């Protein structure tokens, strides 16, 4: 555990940053509690301890991410997209790629798999999504399971990010993808069970946060830098937009499938027995 002592100054800096982010929120809360509501905070000590834990936990979490997951993530994204890795050391292929031969999108198969799995796994670790999933389970009295929601959302992010990396490789128009995606989303909203809509749209905003955004940004920029003919400024954007669009589609799709299966069971009691 020698490394821990080296992390201490980093945790201190991160703690200062987190405190600085939390201060305006605390100021607003304190102002309304004292000036407007003029009520004592019940269980003040419990809440105060909890707040200390939130700030400390977030600060430590971020140092860990910055020391371990972000560097590895961007290093991998970079390695998987370099021409020498793609050509598997074959000098002839490298020369062909560099001379501007159109690249077959299938060459990037490992990148797509990496995008899918890293999108999926980082979303499962997203603290804000965990919070929403806990609340969803509580108020649905268990009908929406915590892991069920998180896995659905994570699958949505995974599909979105994979499609996003494919778009960067092929250089297709971002706006075309977004227009089709949002068009489909609105159509789906019209037909989905009404009670899932607020939660589905909340999931879109929640997924792209502390863990996912830096990893996706690194992936997008690494890809746009290494694929010949792409610019990091023009093509590096957009992965985050995809990662917030597809979870909404996924959550509504899940609810629609559940509703459809429940209806089929009702209409066809025989299949229920089998």
């Amino acid at each position, binding site marked *: 555990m020698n490394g821990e002592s080296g992390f201490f100054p980093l945790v201190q800096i991160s703690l200062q940053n987190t405190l600085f982010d939390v201060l305006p929120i605390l100021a607003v*809360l304190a102002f309304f509690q004292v000036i407007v509501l003029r009520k004592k905070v019940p269980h003040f000590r419990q*809440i105060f301890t909890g707040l200390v834990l939130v700030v400390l936990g977030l600060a430590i979490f971020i140092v860990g991410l910055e*020391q371990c997951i972000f560097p590895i993530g961007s290093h991998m994204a970079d390695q998987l997209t370099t021409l020498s890795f793609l050509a598997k050391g074959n000098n002839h292929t490298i020369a062909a790629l560099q001379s501007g031969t159109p690249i077959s999108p299938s060459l990037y198969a*490992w990148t797509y798999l990496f995008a899918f799995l890293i999108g999926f796994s980082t979303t499962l670790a997203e603290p804000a999504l965990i919070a929403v999933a806990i609340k969803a389970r509580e108020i649905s009295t268990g009908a929406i399971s915590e892991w069920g929601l998180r896995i659905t959302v994570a699958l949505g992010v995974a599909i979105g990010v994979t499609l996003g990396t494919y778009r960067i490789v092929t250089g297709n128009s971002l706006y075309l993808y977004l227009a089709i995606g949002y068009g489909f989303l609105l159509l789906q909203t019209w037909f989905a069970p009404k009670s899932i809509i607020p939660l589905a*749209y909340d999931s879109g905003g*929640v997924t792209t*946060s502390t863990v996912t955004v830096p990893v996706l940004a690194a992936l997008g920029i690494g890809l746009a830098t290494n694929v010949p003919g792409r610019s990091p400024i023009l093509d590096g954007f957009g992965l985050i937009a995809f990662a917030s669009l597809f979870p909404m589609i996924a959550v509504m799709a899940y609810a629609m499938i559940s509703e459809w299966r429940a209806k089929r069971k009702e209409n066809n009691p025989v299949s229920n027995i089998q």
Partner: protein
Amino acid sequence: MDLLKPLLHKLLSAFLDILPIIAVIIFFQLAVIQKPFPDIEQTVSGLILVVLGLFLFILGLENALFPMGERLAIQFAQRGNVLWLVLFGFALGFSTTIAEPALTVIANKAGQIAADSGAIQNKTESISSFVYGLRLTVAFSVGLAIAIGVIRIVKGWHLIWFILAGYGLIVLATFFAPKEIIGIAYDSGGITTSTITVPLVTALGIGLATTIRGRNPILDGFGLIALASLTPILFVMLFGMVVYGVEG
């Protein structure tokens, strides 16, 4: 001992949350890239910090952020003053966003792009006033979203109309917005809702929907985050139209 058991359980579940990332990283490093880890000691201690941090955060979440959001909702609902509640929603949205580090990063990037494309002068003052304007715009739009969302919960209006109207306006604005700002606008929708804001705002919404008679927590309690990720897209594009001029 009885106190320790739930804590150990929470520590284990924090480890399970991180496990998929560890598995993906190990698989790609060993099976695909086929090189040893560059700095194994730093990696392992970093992972320990990630698990520990998540554990502490979740612990604090259930002891502070959730009860705070819920109690505020109950106290506001008992007071019965919608105006103060709306002002509170706006202040909460604005204050959490203006200090958001991810927003600062994106705004700085946008400022650089604007200067490079010649839309604003490539001087430090004009760039920093662009960046500041962009941050204010996004913070205002999030404040507005929470304020509107709180009114929606109080009135019991269905979220779908706000979503349809909001995205309709976004599609419309995308046609007229300058190209340089569109990517930034869509990305800024996702990043404005931070890890501390989400639990607080979610608990506030659900607390309101539970306290106000006739509201359904599932149908009316969620949706604040949805609005808060929608309005920044629209307002950043409007900001772009003001700075760059309307695209023909």
